[in-house]
């Protein structure tokens, strides 16, 4: 006490007191002021929506509008549902780095909690497909053979018959499905990101989607058999033809040259 009073006339004493006063005021405000609001809507989900709205204003609003109504730079998010947000943000497609024919996947910088908050906010704008649960997308009890049939009917025209991806018009493309998480595949079918059409539960039920995921898993693993040997990228007859023409004929020409270049004469010239 003596020490403190001895310094009360120090030139910096006033500044220290001021700092204490400011910290106390700010701290008290932070503790007390939001309290009535938190009591007003105490539920967990509305807190998530509130947090999501803040994240939205920072990361999304410049293109999708302050309230998700869309702008010339980005489509409306009313009714896209939480599944669309979960897909776009967790694969790093959104927020988009730059405009172009297609927004590509990149490293995701949001945590799952933040994605859930964003999704909760966007889902609150209008009803839409919800983020699927593990029991919906898990391929555990699904039929890969049936999934293969569904995949060839619905997906293979763009994504190739084993999901290797392919080109579309004007720089757009269908990405490869190799190594894509089951949840992301499910959400993409449900919501139809960018130019991909959606395959809603009304026309492709949840178990059909799980079958497709099981098929992709079956053709994607290192254990998946290739009866013919080299897959050559499983991108169809082009790579196979190229291989036959370049390496098959090339080897024959090299062999013929090697045979003819060696003399059979006793006296080597």
């Amino acid at each position, binding site marked *: 006490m003596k020490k403190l009073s001895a310094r009360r006339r120090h030139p910096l004493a006033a500044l220290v007191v001021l700092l204490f006063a400011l910290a106390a005021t700010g701290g008290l405000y932070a503790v007390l002021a939001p309290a009535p609001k938190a009591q007003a809507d105490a539920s967990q989900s509305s807190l998530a929506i509130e947090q999501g709205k803040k994240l939205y204003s920072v990361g999304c609003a410049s293109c999708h509008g302050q309230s998700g109504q869309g702008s010339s730079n980005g489509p409306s998010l009313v009714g896209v549902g939480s599944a669309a947000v979960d897909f776009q943000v967790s694969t790093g497609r959104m927020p988009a780095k730059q405009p172009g024919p297609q927004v590509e996947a990149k490293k995701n910088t949001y945590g799952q909690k933040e994605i859930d908050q964003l999704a909760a906010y966007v889902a609150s704008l209008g009803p839409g497909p919800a983020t699927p649960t593990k029991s919906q997308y898990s391929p555990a009890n699904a039929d890969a053979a049936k999934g293969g049939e569904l995949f060839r*009917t619905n997906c293979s025209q763009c994504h190739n018959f084993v999901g290797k991806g392919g080109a579309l018009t004007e720089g757009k493309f269908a990405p490869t499905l190799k190594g894509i998480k089951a949840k992301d595949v499910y959400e993409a079918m449900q919501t139809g990101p960018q130019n991909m059409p959606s*395959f809603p539960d009304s026309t492709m039920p949840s178990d059909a989607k799980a079958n497709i995921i099981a098929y992709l898993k079956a053709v994607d693993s290192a254990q998946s058999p290739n*009866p013919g040997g080299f897959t050559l990228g499983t991108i169809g007859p082009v790579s196979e033809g190229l291989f036959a023409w370049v390496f098959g004929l090339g080897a024959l020409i090299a062999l013929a040259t090697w045979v003819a270049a060696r003399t*059979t004469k*006793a006296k080597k010239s």
Partner: protein
Amino acid sequence: MSDETGSHTDVPENLPSGRGGHGDEVAKPNPFANPGLPPHEHRRQDIDDKAAKHSERVVAGLFTLSMLGTIAFIACFVIFPVDKIVYIFPFGHVSALNFSLGLTLAVALTGIGAGAVHWARTLMADEEIADERHRIDADDELRENVRQQWITGAKESGFGRRKLIRNTMMGALTMVPLAGLVILRDLGPLPEKKLDHTLWAKGKQLINSNTNQPLRPEDVVVGSLTFAQPDGLEESQDDFQQQIAKAALMIIRLKPEDIKDKRELDWSHQGIVAFSKICTHVGCPISLYEQQTHHVLCPCHQSTFDLSDGARVLFGPAGHPLPQLRISVNSQGNLIALGDFEEPVGPAFWERS
């Protein structure tokens, strides 16, 4: 030098120097003269009997290897079941049957090839020979002889004089091939009107290809893509492939205000449009639908159609728009066709209506 190439009569021309004694004009060396063949060199097998015997054994060994390859091929065919998968290092998980058949057949064919090459190179005669070209046409005497024979033959047969015989014979010879031509008709039934019609008919329900359930308008949301087939078409039917190849449908939903073509809007049901899935270029299944642009791309030759504008061709070799099916709903609220396609689906053909 002249000794080595002594078998050739034009040797002097080959030697530019030392032969210039006949005068300047004649002795001018011809730079393009035939240098003749180099002297024949023998192979070891020609001189050394032991080497020849060794070569013979090698060739016979290669042919024997080929025989063993064929036997192994047959054995593998018998041993391995068709669905057995084995792991072989650089290839991964491969079919044991495919792999062993390929390998043994390669041994069998390579054995024959390598044996034949080795035989030809080491043991068959390899003396160089020159085969001089000669005149292609016959000499004048022979030509005159043939001409006389022809004239005599024509005179004796009366070919020029008896015109009736000549003309009827030509007629008979011309008609005979018709018999062969007519048989071709039996190669198969005529297509008749099969290319003009599909299974779609008034009141036929649209069945979702994924669920085999009738499609309802509320199932089809904007931006989605669904494939449909006519009610009553089952995969177990004999002509399933022929029928689905003509009747396959792509169902999408557009906002009615996005539809630019009036007929397309009229033929839709609340913006739900049904287009043929068969490309009008060469009939590939076409369903690379981009839901933001409403373009459909054909994977075969990149024909691009605008589904918001009557499936107009935007790009590529396709000749005409994708046919649209008129749809509506029935009393149970299921989507139905209001008739067949107005025009034949798929690529153009002769007498296309």
